[in-house]
C-alpha cells in the first residue's frame, strides 16, 4: 500500500553519501538501496517521513520534514498550535 503520490519531503544528495548503509538499515519501507557503493532512492512515494534515515545519516546527505502522519495529531496542532504530536501521554487512549 502506498500513500499520496509526489507529496513526501524526502531530499537526498548522493554526492555526500559515504555508503555506510545506515539508511538501508533503518528505513521501514525499503526506500533506499545501495548502488555502486552509494545509497539510491527507489520509490519516494513509499516514504512515510519517519525521519529515521535523516537522523542517522552521519554525512548529512538526507533531509526530510519528519513528523507523525496522524490526522488527530495534525488537527490538534491546528487547534492548539505547535508541532503535531499524538496525545499518547495524556491518557486519551486514542492514539498509536
Amino acid at each position, binding site marked *: *500500500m*502506498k*500513500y*499520496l*503520490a509526489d*507529496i*513526501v*519531503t524526502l531530499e537526498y544528495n548522493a554526492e555526500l553519501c559515504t555508503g555506510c548503509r*545506515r539508511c*538501508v*538499515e*533503518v*528505513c*521501514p*519501507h*525499503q526506500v533506499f538501496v545501495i548502488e555502486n557503493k552509494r545509497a539510491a532512492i527507489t520509490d519516494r512515494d*513509499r*516514504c*512515510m*517521513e*519517519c*525521519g*529515521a*534515515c535523516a*537522523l*542517522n545519516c*552521519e554525512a548529512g546527505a538526507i533531509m526530510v*520534514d*519528519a*513528523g*507523525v*502522519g*496522524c*490526522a*488527530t*495529531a*495534525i*488537527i490538534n496542532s*491546528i487547534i492548539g498550535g505547535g508541532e*503535531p*504530536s*499524538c496525545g*499518547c*501521554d495524556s*491518557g486519551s*487512549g*486514542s*492514539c*498509536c
Partner: protein
Amino acid sequence: MIQDSNQICCDVDGALPLTETSPGREPPQIAGQVGFEISRRERWEHFRCRLGSFRDRYSVAPGLYAFGNPGPQGDVLVSASYKLSFDTLRKELEGLDCWILVLDTRGINVWCAAGKGTFGTAELVRRIGATRLGEVVFHRRLLLPQLAAPGVNAAEVRRQTEFKISFGPVRAADIPAYMKAGYRKTPAMSTVSFGLRDRLVLTPMELNPALKKFPWFAAMAILLFGLQRRGIMFTDIWNGGGMAFLILGLTAVASGAFLTPVLLPFLPCRSFAVKGWIAGLAVVFLTSLIPIVSAAMNSRLLLFAAYLLFPVISSYLALQFTGSTTFTGMSGVRKELKITLPVYAAAAAVSLFLLIMFKLTEWGKG
C-alpha cells in the same frame, strides 16, 4: 539467577567513568530476571490493551533485565517500557541468554515513543549510565529494534557512550533468525507490513473513541426529529426519520472506523478521505434498503441530507486511521486535511439546513 548476574557484575571493576545519574559505587543493580513465558493473566492483559485505556497503565519499570543467564558477553537488547512491547520481545527469545535494557518511554510502544523522542538518544544514553551497563557487559554492542531509529541517533550514542548500535529486525519474532544469520537482516525483516490481522487488531481503538462521541449525535438527532410545535414528541422520533438517522449514524461509524481499515487495500484511491467516503456511500446505500429505514426516508430532503452527511462522517473517521497505519506520512495527511476539513464543515452545514427544511415542511403539513 539474579545472584549469578550480580556475581558477574561484582567481578567487574567499573572501568567506565560513571555518569551523574549513577547511584554510587555499589554494584550495578539488575532490575529483574525474566523468561519467555507469557502467563494466562498476561495474555488477558494483552487483549485488554487492544481494547482501550488499559494500555495507558500497562508499563514495566525501566532498567536492565537479565533474560535467561546472560554473562558479560551477552547481547543487550533495548526495549520500551510499554509492557506489551516488552512481552512481545521476551516471548520470542526462548533459548537465548541476553540482557534487556528497558528505556523509560512512559509506557508507550517503541515506534510511537521513537516518533515522540522518548525512545531517543538522550534517554538511551541516560539509561546506559544509570544502569552502568558498561560494567555489566564487556562488549560495547547494542541491539535496538529497527523502529526505534526515528528517535535514536546511533552515531551520537556511540560518541557519548562507546556503545555501537545495530538496528535489528522490525519484528521481535525475527530476532533469533537475525542472530543466526550473523546479525544480518533480510529485506523482509526490515520492512513494516500492514496485513489484514495488523489492521484488524487496531480497529477497536478506532471504534471506541467514535462510539464515545455517538451519544452527542444521537441526542441531536432525537432533539431535531422529536421537536414538534407541541413540544418534543418522542413518538415522532421513530417514524419521523429519527430511528433511520440513528441506524445510519451507527453504520457510518462502522464504515469509517471498521470497514475502511479492514478493506483498506481494496478501496479505490490512495486518499483515506476518499476511501472512507466511498465505503460510507456504499454503506448508506445498503442501509437504506432496510425496510424501516427506507420507510422513514420518504422525503427527498431527508434522503439528500443522509447521503450528504453519513459518507462524510465515514470519511472523517477513516482519516483518523492514518494515525494507526504504517505508511502514511505527515505531508500527505496535512494535504488531505487541508482539502477535506472545509468540505466536511460545508457538508455538515448543508445537511443540517436540509434537515431544518424537512422539519419546516413537516410542520407546514401538520
